């Protein structure tokens, strides 16, 4: 991607963040209030279902839910980014990569706001603070790469087949509700079918990168790192190459 396209995706992201709450009374505060309200409501509801102590459950839930929300936002917003960039792509030369990159930057800022909120809530909820938390800046990298990789793949698919939007949204919903983000894997009997199936769920390994240091106060295991990094790099390479391969055709499908 050329430097003009980079500068555009950065400046456009910053201006979108600035205008997002520009005409609201609370303005910038909404960047923190919105995730705070979401996290509090979800933890209240699901602690009842999981029959867990509310404090305990909230820490468990937030640890993987915050990166998941980031990942989901990157994928869904990138998916529509190239088609949504029609206003520019049909009139001026910019690299089509600038649009997923732009959504990625916006979502990353939103993630930083959410994780700040989560840590403010942890100050009230979490008792044992351990050294393991320092791994979190590394833990987010596989999530980010997986998100932008899948986002680029969906963006190309969506440009040529608009039918993929509901399909991808449904797949994300399915993946979320079957992953150990909302519920703790201990609710299943050891060696039961469900517990075994969890091993084949890719998000189990991504979630562990956050749940282990935050909730269990241990380091993520090697296998968590290996599987999540392989999956994320794989999707990233495919996504990037798909955009490069089809970029000359986008104009005719926008």
């Amino acid at each position, binding site marked *: 991607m050329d430097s*003009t396209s980079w*500068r*555009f995706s950065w*400046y*456009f992201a910053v*201006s979108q963040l*600035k*205008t997002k709450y*520009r*005409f609201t009374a609370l303005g910038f505060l909404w960047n923190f209030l919105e995730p705070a309200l979401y996290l509090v409501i979800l933890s209240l509801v699901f602690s009842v279902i999981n029959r867990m102590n509310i404090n305990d459950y909230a820490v468990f839930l937030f640890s993987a839910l915050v990166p998941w929300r980031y990942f989901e936002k990157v994928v869904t917003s990138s998916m529509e980014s190239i088609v949504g960039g029609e*206003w*520019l*792509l*049909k*009139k*001026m*030369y*910019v690299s089509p990569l600038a649009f997923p990159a732009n959504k990625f930057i916006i979502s990353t800022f939103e993630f930083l706001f959410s994780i700040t909120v989560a840590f403010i809530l942890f100050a009230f909820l979490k008792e044992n603070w351990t050294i393991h938390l320092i791994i979190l800046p590394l833990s987010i990298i596989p999530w980010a790469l997986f998100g932008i990789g899948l986002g680029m793949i969906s963006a190309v698919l969506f440009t040529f*087949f*608009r039918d993929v939007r509901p399909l991808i949204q449904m797949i994300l919903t399915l993946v979320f509700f079957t992953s150990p983000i909302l519920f703790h894997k201990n609710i299943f009997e050891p060696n039961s079918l469900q517990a075994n199936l969890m091993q084949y769920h890719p998000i189990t390994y991504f979630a562990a990168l956050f749940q282990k240091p935050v909730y269990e106060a241990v380091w993520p295991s090697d296998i968590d790192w290996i599987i999540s990094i392989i999956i994320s790099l794989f999707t990233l390479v495919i996504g990037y190459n798909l955009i490069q391969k089809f970029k*000359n055709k986008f*104009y*005719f499908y926008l």
Partner: protein
Amino acid sequence: MKTIFELKNVSVNFDKHSISHKTLRYALAVKMNGHSSQKISAVDNINLVINDGENVGLIGRNGAGKSTLLKVLTGVITPQSGTVNRNTGKHIVPLIELGIGFQPDLSGRENCYLSGILMGYRKDEIEARMDDIIKFSELEDFIDEPVKNYSSGMYARLAFAIATDVKPDVLLVDEVFGVGDEFFMRKCIIRMQKLMKQGSTTIFVSHNLDFLVTQCNRIIWLDKGKIIMDGDPEETAGVYRLSEGIAV
């Protein structure tokens, strides 16, 4: 003389029926009937060389392929066949439409930055020019208002001021005059003439033949995606007018 653009056997086709051609039903119908979807040839096998310092006018009826050709030159469209060589050392600014990239919620000033970045400038370069841009566009009192509150004249003035303030090497203009009041239009034309004098290469698409004849040193007449005539402005414009049944 340095070459700015060199087009060899360039063709661009669009699908007809572009609303239905993505549906499954349409795809099945095409399969069963055995015919492929109809193509419209917007640019048809064009060979063209544009050199440094030339001021070229593109003329032709609506749908002749002028705007498509301009988009091929800017790189927005990659043609399905043929090759396009672009002089990479030159700073090319397209003015295909006024205010491309303007965001309604952003202020005039913020849009200047966004628009300037899209034209390939850095933020500090735009900052240095900001006062000139504001002065030329006559928007001193409104520059920090969101552009959604601008009148169409104000909008166009700002857009034109940004595009022409920093001296581009190559300027591609698609019928963007006729905006703002008469005085502003005159200001625009004077500025364009200045750019041309300074040696900027310009390519205009316009239906204002008199403007093109007086300002350009070469006119290209397009029809149905083909070059009909390419040469002296007065001669080309004259033949074009005659062919359309207008006495000169």
